[in-house]
């Protein structure tokens, strides 16, 4: 790893390599964060939507993802300790659980189940999520470190252009939202603003680290992200196969962690190259996420997973032969890697600005205006049902989902499940209620299957 970890090693049996290598790389990443202060190394706090890791690597900054730290407390079943501490300090039960868990990590001097999180020497955030801004204001009050709030103006039109060069089908209601995204002049104005801020951020990083910006180093980091992105998109694309080789909600989330933490590194690029190999091998062997494929229903997941019961949440679907072949999480939390965009190495800064703007827009469009992209996924991935999982903690992800469901059900012959819980707070997670709703959803899918089969045989 760029931060002191070992290289990914090739295994003779590729099956399961993505999970085991991912776990090891993650542990090494946290170990490097833990020991960074002893070595006098500095850390930058960033967020998954618009992390700017590529730029920060040019200044030898470790990158800390507080969102990942927070979700890890839930996956490791200790989130309540952190949430309770934050609520004891005055935070409301109704605000983002990630923010509260991170606040408690800071109050506990970085104590975390994966290691010790160093304090920030600098923090960089975008306006992709308004809560990022409130979150960073907490650090502003706690630390002297500079906090750089990056404006990345979002789309003014809700048509997510998932892949460059594709024709854009603009529904009437979408055109009523105005032309910021489709208007080249507006886009260029936004891009210029972002590039100006990049140059301002470079000055901040130079001041914090004492390291001058090296454009050639930046170019190399961008090249590695390009490579990682190509493999990441190939991994997502391979899940169009039936049976799908991996579960986009469960395994996809693990892969996402590596994609964020190891952007712009040799190890990250190699990891995803190996992952492509593993997925191709699974397809060749007819394997799915559970080994011998039992895939019966192909699903899309919309939202953030239920981390307090992450494995069990997956099982509630898997027990019925449900596989998440696609997940909006792998769109909006991949830092733009899912876009068919590569940095132009001849113009690193200009291209980084464009990539940041497009990546953040892709993320926010995936959250606010997911309909077109969802419909495209339903068609491309041959989907039977869409599972919406709005969470109490995250209004960025959750606010528009009920409205999106109405559109999807009007446009495609799929079933949709809408279940609310949380990504952090187990007080809001009722496994029994979730199971009832999920079981009813699959019974509906099965009834529809029987009905369609009956209609087909009658017409024969």
């Amino acid at each position: 790893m760029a931060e002191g970890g070992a290289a990914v090693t090739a295994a003779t049996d590729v099956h399961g390599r993505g999970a085991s290598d991912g776990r090891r790389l993650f542990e090494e990443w946290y170990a490097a964060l833990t020991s960074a202060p002893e070595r006098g190394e500095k850390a930058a706090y960033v967020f998954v939507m618009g992390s700017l890791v590529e730029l920060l690597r040019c200044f030898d900054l470790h990158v800390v993802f507080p969102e990942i730290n927070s979700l890890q407390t839930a996956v490791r079943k200790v989130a309540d300790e952190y949430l309770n501490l934050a609520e004891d300090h005055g935070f409301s039960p109704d605000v983002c659980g990630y923010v509260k868990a991170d606040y408690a990590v800071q109050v506990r001097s970085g104590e975390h189940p994966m290691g010790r999180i160093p304090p920030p020497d600098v923090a960089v955030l975008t306006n992709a999520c308004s809560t990022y801004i409130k979150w960073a204001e907490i650090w502003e009050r706690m630390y002297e470190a500079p906090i750089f709030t990056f404006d990345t103006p979002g789309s003014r039109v809700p048509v997510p252009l998932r892949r460059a060069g594709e024709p854009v089908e603009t529904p009437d209601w979408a055109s009523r939202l105005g032309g910021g995204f489709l208007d080249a002049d507006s886009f260029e104005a936004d891009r210029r603003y972002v590039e100006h801020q990049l140059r301002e951020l470079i000055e901040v990083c130079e001041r914090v680290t004492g390291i001058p910006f090296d454009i050639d180093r930046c170019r190399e980091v961008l090249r590695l992200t390009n490579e990682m992105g190509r493999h990441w998109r190939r991994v997502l694309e391979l899940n169009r196969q039936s049976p799908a080789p991996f579960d986009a909600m469960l395994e996809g989330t693990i892969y996402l962690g590596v994609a964020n933490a190891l952007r712009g590194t040799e190890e990250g690029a190699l990891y995803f190259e190996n992952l492509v190999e593993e997925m191709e091998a699974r397809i060749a062997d007819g394997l799915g996420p559970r080994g011998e494929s039992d895939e019966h229903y192909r699903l899309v997941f919309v939202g953030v997973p239920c981390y307090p019961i992450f494995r069990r949440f997956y099982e509630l679907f898997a027990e019925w032969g449900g596989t998440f072949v696609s997940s909006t999480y792998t769109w909006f939390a991949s830092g733009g890697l899912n876009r068919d965009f590569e940095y132009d190495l001849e113009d690193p800064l200009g291209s980084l600005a464009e990539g940041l703007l497009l990546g953040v827009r892709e993320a926010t469009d995936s959250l606010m205006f997911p309909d077109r992209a969802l419909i495209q996924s339903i068609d491309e991935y041959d989907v039977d049902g869409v599972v919406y999982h709005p969470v109490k903690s995250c209004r960025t992800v959750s606010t528009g989902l009920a409205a999106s469901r109405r559109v999807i059900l009007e446009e495609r012959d799929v079933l949709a499940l809408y279940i609310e819980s949380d990504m952090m707070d187990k007080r809001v997670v009722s496994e029994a209620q979730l199971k009832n709703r999920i079981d009813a959803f699959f019974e509906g899918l099965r009834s529809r299957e029987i009905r369609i089969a009956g209609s087909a045989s009658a017409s024969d």
Partner: protein
Amino acid sequence: MTDPSNTTSGRDPVTVPRLLELAPGAGLDETLEHCRDLVEAPDPPTVRRWRDAGGKVLGHFQVYFPEELAHAAGMLPVKVRGAPVERREADSHFGSYICSILRSSLELALTGRLEVDLFVTHPICDAARNLAGIWARNLPQPARLLYFPQNASSGFAARYLEGEYARLLAEMEDIVGRRVTDDDLRASIRVFNRNRKLLRDLYEVKRETPWLLSVDEAYCLLAVGGLIGREEHNALLERALPAIRERAARPQDKMRVVFEGGFCEQPPLDLLRSIAEFCYVVDDDLLIGLRWLVEDVATDGEPLHALADAYLNSSSYSPVQHDARKPKEKMLLERIRDSRAEAAIVSAAKMCEPGLDEQVAYGQALEEEGIPYFLTEFEEKMTSFSQLQIQLETFVENVLFASEDWEEELLVLQVRERH
């Protein structure tokens, strides 16, 4: 319904419909009652009258919008701020954990009680920015997102915002079918500068002689500005202010407080009345967007640049605008000091993430400064205030009459209803 003398100076004489149904000689009590009725009406008759006269309406969601742009285009800028209505249509478009103002604002539009020709929302929070998509899917009129800079310190922020204003202005021009000149904009800025001056005067009355004007009365005089033309609002305030100053009320033994937490969803008027029973609210952030620009905007240069610069450099504060130069807790302390308040009511709308987050920082800062504060939550639809009144009365008595030994313990009274 038009008053030829009520024209916007500096451009072709455009008659501005009179939207208030107040007789020219109406007294202060009648004026206040009329404003209260308008502010509490979920179906604002002023907007309907404007449309009936052939006017176009720009609805903008909280918190701030440069209404001068709409005014210069000849549109009526209307503040979309929800309403305490029963929701029959809107709730199915949202999940469970969303604040009330988003739902009720959509409800007003879906049920035809608020009709606009252009709707603008802002990413003030993660819920509000989703409103554009939901609005556009379900209503025929165009909806737009306006991204205000959150990197206020960037050397490019003003230029970016100026571009945003120009983009929106072009959309308004298409709607009204005419071009807006710089002189039109300057004339509108002058009208709004006058309005800003009058609102500063209104708040000076609250600060210096709070016994002459209760918080709910002042609120109605302020809020009605979001429902009528600014010239008419100016005329209203010009008549009301001298009458308020001549009131015969005498000072009472009430505590001077700052009310914080009304920047987006609005507390019910009855809640403000409940506060007024025990406190003089000497300053607040209620509908702060109407008072966002704290000084006159320059009229001698590029008007869009002047408005953008004022947004960044001559503005108030709220939990939804980030500006490292204006830490919000320091701004609150300044507001308390400037208004010589003895305590603060730190409130937040239920499910309002920015407001609830800010309560923590406000509380810590107030404790460090030894300023007593009352922490509470509200919802626009709440109807029972008796418990709040008891708690507030207890808080006030404790602060006013507690011995110094008790002060530490009685510094804070938290009234957060846990779900």
